C-alpha cells in the first residue's frame, strides 16, 4: 500500500521535447491505424496543422499521459516513489484542463505532486477496502506558460 508520508511530495522536475514522430505514433495508436498516412492530417502534416490554427503539429487530447511515462523512470519509478504496489494498481480517474495548445517542438517541463492519499471502504474487508492516491501534474512550456493541468487518481485494491 502507498506510503501516506508521501502526501504532499513533489517529484523532481523533468523536461522533455515534444517529438513529432511520437505524436504520429500516439495518434496511430488511439486511431487504431496500421498506416501512419491514415491518421488525421493535423497529426502528420505541418501545413494542415498551421491551416487549422496551430503553430505546429498538435498533440491528441490524451497525449499528456505520456509526459509522466517518458520521464523520471516512468511508471515503475513513480509507483515506487509513492510506495505503491504494481500488482494491486488500478487507474480510476483521469482529468485534463487545457490552457493552451501543446505542439511538436515545444519543451515541456513536468511538475508532479502527490495531492491526496486516503482509504476508501472498510479496512480488513477484502474487495471493500482500497487506498486512493491522487497525483497532480502541471505542464509548463518553454515560454514559462502553464499549458495543462492533469489529475490522475489510482487505487490499490
Amino acid at each position, binding site marked *: 500500500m502507498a506510503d501516506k508520508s508521501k502526501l504532499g511530495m513533489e517529484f523532481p522536475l523533468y523536461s522533455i521535447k515534444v517529438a513529432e514522430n511520437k505524436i504520429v505514433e500516439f495518434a496511430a495508436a488511439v*486511431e487504431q491505424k496500421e498506416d501512419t498516412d491514415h491518421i488525421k492530417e493535423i497529426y502528420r502534416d505541418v501545413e494542415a496543422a498551421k491551416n*487549422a490554427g496551430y503553430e505546429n503539429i498538435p498533440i*491528441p*487530447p*490524451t497525449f499528456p499521459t505520456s509526459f509522466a511515462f517518458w520521464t523520471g523512470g516512468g511508471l515503475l519509478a513513480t509507483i515506487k516513489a509513492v510506495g505503491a504496489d504494481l500488482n*494491486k494498481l488500478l487507474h480510476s*480517474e483521469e*482529468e485534463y484542463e*487545457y490552457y493552451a*495548445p501543446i505542439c511538436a517542438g515545444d519543451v515541456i517541463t513536468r511538475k508532479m505532486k502527490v495531492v491526496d492519499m486516503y482509504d476508501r471502504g472498510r479496512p480488513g474487508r477484502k474487495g471493500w477496502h482500497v487506498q486512493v492516491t491522487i497525483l497532480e501534474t502541471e505542464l509548463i512550456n518553454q515560454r514559462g506558460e502553464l499549458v495543462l493541468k492533469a489529475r490522475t487518481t489510482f487505487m490499490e485494491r
Partner: protein
Amino acid sequence: MTINFDEVAVGDAIPSYTAAPITRTQLVRYAGASGDFNPLHHDETFARMIGMDNVIVHGMFIMGIAGEAITSWIDNKYLRKFSVHFLSMTQTVNLDDFENTKGRATITVRGKVIEKYEENGEKRIRCDIIAQDAQGSRKLTGFFVAALP
C-alpha cells in the same frame, strides 16, 4: 468543418464513434506510443500472477478513443477540460475466436450536450460522454468542456 456555438443545443447528441475491435497488437502499439509499460497490458503471465485471466486494455487507451470521438466532432484546440472515471476493465479480441470475442473489445463512445454557458469570455459547452462495449458494459463515463466559436 467547424461547429459553432449557436448551432449546438442542450440535449443534442454528439456523433457516436465506434472503434475497431481492440487487439493485443494494438495494446503493444499503445504501450510503445504512450510509454505505459505496465505488464498487465501485454504480458499474460503477469496478468495471471495477479489473479486475472488475461491482459486488459489500458484505461488510457479507452480514454484516447473517447478523445478521438470528441475531436472527430470538434477541433482539439477548443477543448478546455476532459475528465473521466474508469468503470470496468476491457479485454481484447481473441484472433482465434474473433466472432465470439469482438463484442467485448468493440468500444462505442456516445455523448450529449448538457450545458451551454459563458466563462472566461468564451462560449462554452459541457458534454457528458460514455464509452461502452458492444455488450453494453460501461467502460468509462465523464465529461468534456469545449469553447466554441
